[in-house]
């Protein structure tokens, strides 16, 4: 190897390190840009009042799409109520938009004594689910305090799955 080769080696090493750094930085920078923001929406609650999502800005919001006719949805609701009790004081807000008419939704919510806001607005809720990317039930979406969608979960969710996500963003 000659002296020229020695300097070439140094140049290559520097170029390599810069490229590695730039690549990693680009990767980390690009990642948060992937995280989409929540859409704005207004849904009617069980009392017939329109409620806007902006009402809970600044909180960690767990939106759980459900329906009374959906078995797995009903199965996970006591767990969601427990989450609201355990983390409500630290800024968690669970919301339950239902894909059904107000009659059956209200009856079921009352029978279970759901401790978080439930909405019964069939058509807008279906459209909203499409915006959130999945029309299957149950469908849970976690929105952090900055309004970014940070976690999605179609299907039955366990406390072990959601709790680490909550703790990460509380």
């Amino acid at each position: 190897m000659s002296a020229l080769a020695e300097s070439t080696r140094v140049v290559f090493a520097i170029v390599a390190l810069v490229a590695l750094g730039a690549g990693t930085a680009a990767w980390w920078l690009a990642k948060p840009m992937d995280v989409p923001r929540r859409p704005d929406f207004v849904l009617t609650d069980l009392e017939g009042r329109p409620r806007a999502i902006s009402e809970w800005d600044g909180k960690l919001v767990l939106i759980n799409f459900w329906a009374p006719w959906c078995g797995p949805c009903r199965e996970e609701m006591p767990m969601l109520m427990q989450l609201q009790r355990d983390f409500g004081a630290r800024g968690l807000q669970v919301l339950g938009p239902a894909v059904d008419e107000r009659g059956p939704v209200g009856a079921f919510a009352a029978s279970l004594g759901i401790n978080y806001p439930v909405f019964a607005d069939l058509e807008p809720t279906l459209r909203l689910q499409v915006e959130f990317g999945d029309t299957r039930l149950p469908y849970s979406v976690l929105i952090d305090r900055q309004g970014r969608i940070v976690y999605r979960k179609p299907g039955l969710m366990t406390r072990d799955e959601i709790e680490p996500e909550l703790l990460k963003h509380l």
Partner: protein
Amino acid sequence: MRFLLCCWFLLWAPALLAASPLDKVLQSNEPEFLPVEQAFIPSASLSGPRTVQVRVEIAEGYYLYRHQLRFRISEPAGFALGEARLPAGKKKTDEYFGPIEAYYNRLEARLPIAAAPKDSGDKTLTLEFRFQGCADRGLCYPPETVLLPLLPDAAPASDPAETSPAASEASDQGQLALMMEERNFWLVVLSFFGFGLLLAFTPCVLPMLPILSGIIAGSAERESAWRGFTLAAAYVVAMALAYTVFGIVAGFTGANIQAAMQEPWVIIAFSAVFVALALSMFDLFHLQLPSRLQTWLSHHSNRQRGGSLIGAGIMGFLSALIVGPCIAPPLAGALLYISDTGDALLGGSALFALGLGMGAPLLALGAVEGGLLPRAGTWMTEVKRLFGLVLLGVALWMLERILPGRLTTVLWALLALGAMIYLLITVRTNKQVLRYPFALLLLLYAALMLYGATRGSVDPLRPWQAFEARPGVPASRAAFLPVKTAAEVNLLLAEAGRKQQPAILDLYADWCVACVKMEHEVFGDPRVAAALEGVLLLRADVTGNDAEDRELLKTLGSYGPPTVAFFGTDGKERAELRLVGETDSAGFLGRLERLRR
């Protein structure tokens, strides 16, 4: 230089990292659920002029709610559907809805068209079908509404060629199920009795002839035609009952008891019964019910004959399940009807009538035999010995299902040798010269079978095979590719579909008498082999009736062998061609021709 290479590689590292799927792996750790259009695949057709048939293929682990199904003809206006005929689903208790039913794997529904506008002409109907289902792992789909065009099930019915006898056999089990829905009770029962009569001389019933004859010849009292008739009647009624029970269970659960009875221990036990019967014919011992049971029976029936009547009944019941378990079109039709409608009364009655029809010739046989059998004396002894031999043959024939072919070939030879020796040692008078040629024939047969056994197995009814049987498959017969699982079949069919190659799938079992016969007479026919050139030939051997076999039958919607399914160049089954039950070369070739068309 190595250093340079390292640097060059490092240059790429960030790019590789950024492009890696690691990002996605970190985000989606939850199990994937199927999209709704893959979880539930609905299709619909017109089955006959006034019935809509809806079928949904349901992915494994997914289910549809019965109470969420809605059907409506959306186009053209003026059509109304009657109440849907839905099979019984899996019962579940839902805390919200209470008791509900769910469908797994496949749903087949039939809907009568209750009203049609007069001027509907030949416009294509559109079915609006709404369904809602969930996955076992905890996910529900929103109610889904699909629009399905309703096309006739079979090829255009206006084609005059379609009404030829060969064509009218097509999709027969479906047509029979439909007939049951549309005709009145007694007409259906009468028709099935007729179908039974037609089936009476198929290979599935033939093995019952020697069994019943043996029972009558071995019966303790044999004074009259009436006696033979009552014994045969007990046998036949029990056989018909077995068909009824089998059909209702199969219709409701899809479980094939006949196939489930083909366990080695059942075969061995039943063969042992025949060997015992045979030995009692040779007067080696006297078969009698335990004395306590005999006392009980005579006490309750006031007739000493009760015992053998019940014995004949038990044999009849078991014969139907064990001896000749074959699916025939009327049987499949009735099973389809029961599983579609849950109507066990009409379905069961039809099956009972079918069994009685199949047994009617046996009644005649019983009466004739009871009347003709000599009262007593050496003649009777000879007849009994002959039946003993036949019963040994029946036992051996059943053991063929579980023993290796060469061994049974040797056993057939031994049976023939035994018969020959018996013939020779019992010669008492000079008048019995006729025995010598018979003995010679038996010796020849035994020699053929023994010679054949050294080269492979030989069909006992075709001893001349000893000269043609070669290890391997003769060139002039259709060669099947063995398949086992439903997934395997789907893969091969998809492959054939891509290559635009038609395919057939044959369901076969050693215990299926008609399958074995078709193997010789249809698939062994050089004309059939020639016609099958270029067709993908799949064969599923369901002899073992294990979980994978049952899964395959379920996927095909079949109750068992013999069944041959035909698949067009698009890889889809031509359901109207499906062959259920036995057929001959001509019938098979006719279907092949329609497949090619």
